[in-house]
């Protein structure tokens, strides 16, 4: 069975007056590993629970393939999920935990031992799960998700607590699953690891979509612009719909005459044209490609803003590539 696309379509979720997911839409493609990124409290776990029918949306719909999770004929055989690190009884052995899940899903018991072995718990299955380390609990959750060999995996922070070997095994496993056509949707705070693992990213903050798409493309979507007239250029670029930010940690950040701008939403050519039309001199125009952590910080605006006219500030340490001017 090949993976199915996961669809989140204009989903909104409120808890009282607080909106935790706000008109969120994105798709997760089969055959790829998709990272689900966002700061703490950004709505990632809630979105995953809505996707899996564990929480009800106040608006919008979610689908696994062509139907909601709650309407799947064989939900366990379709989606393997690991949402909570401690979703087991601490007095029950890891093996018994999986045997219970196997019974509920109608899976033959030999699969329990296979899943334990795949997750690296073959020697620890008889131990009470309450004695497991955090990494072993993650492995138990992964074993549960793999129990029915589903074509879709939804994993919430699966790398937390894993040792380097465990992280590598997890990465190899998820890459293998995506390689055979499965859908792999993984939330994580381990950005360095995500960078090595994912094909696509979905980034949310305050319940809203910040950006989504192939990571390789997103890395190159921000332009680095240096100009002695950064403020005027910022206004001109904003008027044409660009998102313009300034790097306050740049050496010349306080000097508007040689300001460094980060520009999204327009091409390098359009930036050059805007500068020419506005009569603004450019001293540098390049595609910016930073680490995923840099991009994440930029996307989620976690640093203090330092606005100048027509320009929002963001703290980044850009690596310049593909210098155009």
């Amino acid at each position, binding site marked *: 069975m090949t993976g199915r696309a996961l669809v989140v379509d204009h989903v909104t979720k409120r808890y009282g007056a607080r909106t935790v997911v706000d008109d969120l839409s994105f798709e997760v493609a089969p055959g790829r590993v998709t990272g689900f990124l966002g700061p703490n409290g950004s709505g990632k776990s809630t979105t995953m629970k809505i996707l*899996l029918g*564990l929480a009800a949306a106040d608006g919008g719909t979610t689908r696994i393939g062509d139907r909601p999770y709650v309407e799947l004929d064989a*939900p*366990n055989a379709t989606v393997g999920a690991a949402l909570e690190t401690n979703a087991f*009884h601490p007095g029950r052995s890891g093996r*018994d935990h999986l*045997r*219970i899940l196997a019974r509920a899903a*109608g899976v033959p018991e030999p699969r329990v031992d296979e899943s334990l072995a795949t997750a690296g718990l073959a020697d620890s299955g008889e131990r009470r799960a309450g004695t497991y380390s955090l990494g072993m609990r993650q492995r138990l959750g992964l074993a549960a998700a793999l129990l029915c060999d589903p074509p879709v995996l939804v994993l919430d922070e699966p790398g937390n607590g894993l040792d380097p070997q465990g992280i590598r095994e997890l990465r190899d496993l998820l890459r293998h699953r995506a390689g055979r056509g499965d859908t792999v949707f993984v939330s994580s705070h381990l950005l360095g690891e995500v960078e090595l693992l994912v094909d696509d990213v979905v980034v949310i903050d305050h319940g809203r979509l910040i950006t989504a798409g192939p990571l390789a493309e997103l890395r190159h979507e921000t332009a680095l612009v240096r100009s002695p007239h950064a403020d005027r250029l910022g206004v001109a670029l904003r008027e044409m719909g660009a998102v313009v930010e300034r790097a306050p940690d740049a050496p010349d950040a306080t000097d508007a005459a040689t300001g460094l701008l980060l520009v999204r939403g327009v091409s390098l050519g359009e930036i050059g044209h805007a500068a020419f039309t506005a009569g603004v001199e450019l001293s540098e125009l390049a595609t910016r490609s930073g680490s995923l952590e840099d991009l994440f910080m930029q996307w989620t605006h976690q640093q203090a803003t330092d606005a100048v006219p027509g320009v929002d500030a963001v703290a980044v340490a850009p690596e310049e590539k593909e210098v155009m001017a």
Partner: protein
Amino acid sequence: MSTMQRLTRAELMKLTTTRMPWAFLLVLLVMGAINAATVAFGTDMDGSKAFVSTAADQQSLVAFAVNATMIAGLFGAIAAAREYAHLTVIPTFLSDPMRRRAVGAQLVAIATGGAVLGAVGAGITIAAVAATLPTTEYGFLIPALDVVRVIAASAFCGAVGAVLGAGIGVVVRNVGGAVTGAVLVLIVAPPMLVQLINSTASWIPASLALDLSGVETEVTAPAAVAALLAWALVPAAVGAFAVRHRDVA
């Protein structure tokens, strides 16, 4: 095998793969020991053993159904609430996202566990009393049919108490709160209800359990069964409704 059967087997396995059944078995053994000690060392005010001198007296002593309701009530409350406390409800609801069958399977399994507790408790109590009666001048006088009735009543009341407790546990979702709720509903509230409305005395769980055990005859057996089912199914229905309309935190 149907989905309901699979889920029920899984829920039964949940009940038997932790130490909880052993803890409750220990409670039953302690209660059996207390009954044995009562027979061996207890006396009436006049120093005689008249309290075990007739079959009716002995049947009253071994009528475990009242205890079964309360003990199984705690069992059901703990078994249901810990599903939420330990988040094991998440894989359960992922297996049955509509939740109806999952809740039904859980109630069936917990009712089964409560029935077993009740039957085993009655069996231990009867065995303990029978084993210690030779220390008195009286033999075991309860007819076999009444022994069966006492065990059956205890099993039924165990199932009822467990379902009642499970309903409270599902609503409260906290083990301590669920136990407190079960104690309130099964032990504290009924006497207060009787004080407020005297005519309810025959319809509280303890009285109904004694009717079913053949110790009292104020309510017919079918009426007692119906009333006990009502005591169990109301909180269970409230719990089932809550589960279907509530997010998993």
